[in-house]
């Protein structure tokens, strides 16, 4: 099978090289799609239309399929994320130990729902299916740092710091 011609990246941005390198590693085969989207999201933070079109052309697969895959998997973000990310775990252990109250509190103080970002682009709110930190339920992740045995008050304090902080 002949490899498709190498497509030029949409912009001069050097970060495209990382994405291209991932596709090259997999011989520009269609099965490289998910790995490629992971690497694009890692360097750009999210996947915009331009990225999806570039990946589709490079791997010679229909844009519709690329879009289908990008929207199917929960971890792929099609919109830019906030400066900070707050992830509330809604695993079973966290759920029965009060995670719903934490989520309500977070939604109250940020004014956004899960999956959204505050208008000032400071905070993105996500929920997790299970972080595997069930021993310390309920758990909340602030920018990658897991806080175990969380309660609405401590979580609110943390968030208010983020929200009042000038960018």
């Amino acid at each position: 099978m002949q490899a498709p011609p190498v497509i030029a990246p949409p912009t001069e941005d050097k970060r495209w090289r990382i994405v291209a390198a991932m596709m090259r590693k997999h011989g520009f085969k269609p099965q490289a799609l998910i790995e490629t989207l992971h690497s694009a999201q890692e360097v750009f933070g999210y996947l915009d239309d331009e990225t999806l079109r570039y990946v589709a052309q490079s791997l010679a697969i229909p844009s519709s399929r690329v879009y289908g895959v990008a929207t199917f998997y929960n971890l792929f973000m099609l919109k830019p994320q906030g400066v900070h990310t707050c992830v509330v775990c809604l695993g079973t252990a966290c759920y029965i130990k009060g995670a719903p109250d934490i989520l309500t509190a977070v939604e109250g103080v940020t004014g956004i729902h899960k999956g959204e970002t505050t208008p000032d682009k400071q905070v993105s709110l996500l929920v997790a299916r299970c972080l595997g930190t069930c021993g310390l339920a309920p758990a909340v992740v602030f920018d990658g740092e897991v806080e175990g045995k969380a309660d609405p008050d401590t979580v609110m304090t943390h968030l208010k710091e983020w929200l009042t902080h000038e960018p």
Partner: protein
Amino acid sequence: MNLEDLHALAEQYHREQAQYEHRIVVCMGTACQSAQSEQVITALDSELKARGLEKQCAVRAGGCRGLCAAGPLITVEPGQTTYQGVKPDDAPALIDSLGGEPIERLLCDTTMPFFTRQKRVVLEYNGLIDAERIDSYIEVGGFETFLNVLTQMTPNEVINAIQRSGLRGRGGAGYSTGLKWNTVAKAVGPRKYVICNGDEGDPGAFMDRSVMEDYPYRLLEGMLIAAYAVGASEGYFYVRAEYPLAVKRLRHAIKQAEKAGFLGNNICDTSFSLKLEIRLGAGAFVCGEETALIASIEGKRGTPRPRPPYPAESGLWGSPTLINNVETLANVTPILREGSDWYLSIGNERSRGTKVFALSGRVQNTGLIEVPMGMTLREIVFEVGGGVPDGKRFKAVQTGGPSGGCIPEQYLDIAVDYESLRQLGTYIGSGGMIVMDETSCMVDVAKYFMDFCMSESCGKCVPCRVGTAQMHGLLVKITRGEATLDDLALLEDLCEMVKATSLCGLGQGAPNPVQSTLRHFRDEYLAHIVDKTCPAGVCKIHHREVTP
């Protein structure tokens, strides 16, 4: 690489470690990490440096010891003194105590039932080997079994040994591992694949993550043996992207194994070759289903397809494919090392060996446990788990994740195995075990799981896509106190229909949490519907709600 080379490596590692008078191993599992274990390491390091003791005492990150509730846990070798709840401020006292009396107030009692009632096969190294060094695994006998298998056993003998041991798939379905291997071995194809299913998606389950993070080499050895037995030359670890440390450790393990000559072409000068790669999931629960997982590795949307043909005959890119769960593969090496008879002696007649459970929820000793199959739920929850804290009353234990069910108090004395739990309307599942007390509302729990299945349904088949949404709607209605008995009848009908007609395990299992809670806690449903009250006080039923 032969046995002598292996022993030389082990010896070298042993000598290197023996240079240190003391070795402190700090648990860096996720739970301990969020209890500041990283800061404990830093504090210990700087304290040692300040005293000029870096050459006498080594500090390093270790794996999960199991008792997450008491983290961070640290172990001082030699002597295996275990401490719990260590804070960075304790570093000076800890270093003072080296070689002397242990610190009483921090001691973790390893003679309590939590530790003594466990039987560790998969987790046999207790998180004490270095997960980032192949020679640390080799020192405890790693890869010896593989070398013996490769040079002294035929693939058929390996399959027979696994089949005779009675090992069953630890992903939840409990299919005989030996039979599965046999089918793949007999299947005809120019190329065969092995896949390790590390897409541990059940909420409340973190056994496989621990195995991948703490024992990546053990898992790799299991993959090697499996690939040799079925005749596969390529393989994949399919790991959730939510487990970055597991991915990092496995990647590192593959590199080191390639360097040591355990992966690649003509391994150890035989005709056996194996190439292993890692593929990341991207947050889709359904990808734990084997045909969906295969689609995902192929770069597609992770939707399942009807079986047969089973992956054993037509799997990845249409080739015969062996898919085993992480814990299943981690059992392979000890079985072949100690023999099938040894494995047969653990567990009960229907289910052999041990099972790793993630014990969490309203239980004293939350964490990771490994117990022989056939232990009763009462022993697990009240002896190993230490019972329900805060003087609350036990209500149920949930197993099997979103396809499982809740087991009430009157069945606590049943022996836990694949069949006994199935008779109670639940599954052993991948091993999540969540204890609930009187503060949990069973209708709310059923609603929680239905919400999970509804959002994780891939949308391919109608019964699951539409059925889970309809059932969720009815459960919401019940928890709001707005439902009638007709709604309940409709819910029960839908459960039967979705179970019977869905394409894959996600849809077929989705009604289970509802059916099992209806079976054991029907009165709670009736309380919501007829009396318009939530006995546990969880659901906010409108006319009863008191505004603060």
